[in-house]
């Protein structure tokens, strides 16, 4: 091989000379996209619109707080196991924290849903934010259902036996077997919590990238066109 052959440029598209060398490639494209759609000033704002000074706008963040407690207490329960949460006093406490934080999560999830439904929270380019919220709700219901199935008590057995016929009637009984404790436990402590958490992170990013939706009776200024990223 001659030195001329070694100095030839590699095959493929030539880099754009207008761009700096470190601005080429998918990493720079992703970075630029993130900087445009979600600058840090939008992700961690110091000022908020005046109209969010209402308790109705607190329901979503209360859901997040409840979810944190759900995950923390769930991690503790996973470490010590069902014998511990049924027998020991501390286990009972963490079991109760897990249960009641889930109740709080769903109560404020529904209140958040009411607030966004009657406030038409999908307006001005926020339809996907609403859709992701709906998916979070549905995945959360299935996650809670698997939680009821793995309590390891008569309640969970009663639910599983009755649910077996119901799930079988949908045709999913072979794949999603409510009588299979190992399967339901794995889904409840791994797959579904990860799904809920990632969807909530996506939901928050969507809310922060477009800002909190204006009240219906608060007209949008002409400079802020519908669907535009702020």
């Amino acid at each position, binding site marked *: 091989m001659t030195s001329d052959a070694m100095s030839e440029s590699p095959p493929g598209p030539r880099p754009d000379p207008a761009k700096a060398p470190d601005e080429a490639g998918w990493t720079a494209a992703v970075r630029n996209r993130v900087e445009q759609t979600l600058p840090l000033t939008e992700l961690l704002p110091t*000022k908020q619109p*005046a*109209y969010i000074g209402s308790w109705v706008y607190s329901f979503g963040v209360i859901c997040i707080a409840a979810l944190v407690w759900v995950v923390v207490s769930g991690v503790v329960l996973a470490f010590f196991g069902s014998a511990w949460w049924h027998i020991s006093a501390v286990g009972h406490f963490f079991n109760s924290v897990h249960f009641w934080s889930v109740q709080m999560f769903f109560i404020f999830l529904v209140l958040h849903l009411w607030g966004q439904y009657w406030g038409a929270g999908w307006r001005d380019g926020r339809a996907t934010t609403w859709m992701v919220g709906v998916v979070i709700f549905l995945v959360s219901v299935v996650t809670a259902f698997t939680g009821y199935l793995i309590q390891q008590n008569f309640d969970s057995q009663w639910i599983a036996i009755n649910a077996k016929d119901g799930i079988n009637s949908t045709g999913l009984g072979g794949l999603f077997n409510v009588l299979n404790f190992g399967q339901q436990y794995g889904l409840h402590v791994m797959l579904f919590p990860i799904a809920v958490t990632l969807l909530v992170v996506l939901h928050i990013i969507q809310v922060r990238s477009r800002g909190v939706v204006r009240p219906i009776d608060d007209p949008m200024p002409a400079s802020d066109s519908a669907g535009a990223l702020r």
Partner: protein
Amino acid sequence: MNEPAPYLHWGFILISLPNLVLIGVMVLLFIVALFAPFPGHKRISGHTDDE
């Protein structure tokens, strides 16, 4: 508490008393949230947007 909850039945509607009470509390909480003053909320003069 170690017994089935009382159920209320009107026509096709069948609901346990605890669930009905919870729904009532949630509706009440939502109404309160609409009208209760929000603490620590300062309006910046002439500033109604987050820009």
